[in-house]
């Protein structure tokens, strides 16, 4: 039997220009209602004029290896696919919001239209068709690299092999799968 895939994303934040094309693409692709977002750009500004600094870190669900959102879900609506993608089964979600509280990345939100919890799915519907997530395909400055961690030929693999990287809040023990290049 073939090894299961393990999808992850590498982000090269230094390339991010905060154009928010990924945010718009995600909303359009996944029909995300107004006022809420499945992904975001965390902007940080520093320094004093004229020596100013700005950094932009795109963030969304980290599709953790050991996701606390899945663990606390009372109905099993939050689940992890074999390929590591964490999803919410809308038909089983009762909207208790426990997973939203348990997520250390605040990556989940309550969808007022569906009355259940919503979040990034890594565009699983596209990935299953062999396509890239909408945010990855749209990004004009190529911040995002999506791929299979178990495939040594993937671009993602090459980046993680050749560059230093970090993950956010590793101390929570969730095993996040968004890798930020340094």
């Amino acid at each position: 039997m073939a090894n299961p895939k393990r999808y992850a994303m590498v982000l090269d934040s230094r390339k991010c220009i905060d154009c928010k094309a990924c945010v718009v693409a995600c909303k359009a692709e996944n029909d995300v209602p107004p006022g809420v977002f499945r992904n975001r750009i965390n902007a940080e500004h520093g320094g004093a004029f004229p020596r100013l600094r700005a950094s932009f870190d795109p963030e969304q669900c980290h599709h953790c290896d050991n996701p606390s959102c899945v663990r606390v879900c009372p109905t099993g609506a939050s689940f992890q696919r074999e390929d590591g993608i964490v999803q919410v089964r809308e038909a089983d979600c009762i909207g208790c919001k426990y997973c939203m509280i348990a997520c250390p990345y605040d990556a989940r939100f309550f969808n007022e239209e569906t009355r259940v919890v919503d979040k990034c799915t890594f565009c699983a519907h596209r990935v299953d068709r062999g396509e890239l997530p909408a945010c990855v395909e749209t990004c004009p400055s190529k911040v995002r690299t999506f791929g299979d961690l178990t495939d040594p030929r993937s671009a993602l693999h090459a980046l993680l092999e050749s560059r230093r990287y970090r993950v956010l809040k590793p101390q929570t023990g969730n095993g996040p799968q968004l890798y930020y290049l340094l």
Partner: protein
Amino acid sequence: MREPVWEFLIVNYLFLGGLSAGIFFVSAFCTWLQTDGKPVYPRIARTGALLAPWPVALGSFLLIFDLGKWWRFWKLFVIFRWESPMSIGSWLLLVFTGITLVNLFAWLTEDERNALFARIPARTPGRARILALNRDLGSWKRRLAMLGFPFAIGVGIYTGVLLGAVQARPFWNTNLVAQLFLFSALSTGTAALILARMVEKGPRDLAEFRFLYTLDICLILLEFFIVLPYLIHGQLSVLAVREALSLVLGGPFTFIFWGLFLGAGLLLPLAIELWEFKPVLMGSGTLHITRGLAMTAAGLVIFGGYVLRYVFVFAGQASGFR
């Protein structure tokens, strides 16, 4: 600070669940304590049995009402996930509420039972079968008390476990929260019974009050000695926990925690109850029963229990890792 996800309905539910657990626990304890085959404090046991089901039933209703899709709440009972405190808690609540209702029925007198069943409209389908349920369960009282103990403790502690199990919120992520919630639940239950016995007319049984005061003073002290290590351990812990504690140590929840919970809701009623209890402690007589003071102290304990849940629900959600 992030926007809270769980709001007042959850605070109310955590409080009401704990209140019922506390009332049932004290009532069951009074049923279990017997001399010559009779409960030592039958009036506390009966008052508790009559009161216990209602707060938890109201709390469960609020909990269901708070769901995004409340009509799917039944899904909680077709799936059991031992890893999810909410899943365990749903079952605990269901069984506990069932036990409190059967226990209430067991404490009804024959006249009360007959009056209750007389209210069933004549056209109700299956009326005969319902009427057949009108049985005397008086002999079950002690067994129901024993059966209910673990479930009452379970409901009392589970509300804290629900929060404590969330590793992403450092304000909650300690087992002390579960213990604090348990002792607070038992204390608010005791206070509710003091209040209920005070409201009832007729001569007061000093032995009853002596028992309730002893219990409440012990519970408040236990609560206090959990708050202290919670703060001390937190201050000696990692940065994220220290930052979380800063929410009550100079942050936006400082007055609510120190003034309303610890001061007005814990230490002030403790002082009043100790004063009422002083003659017993000094061996110089029986306890004072000053109606106004006793009711104030009991009211403050209940208020403190509510504020404790308010602070933990909101401050906990404001805490996180950087």
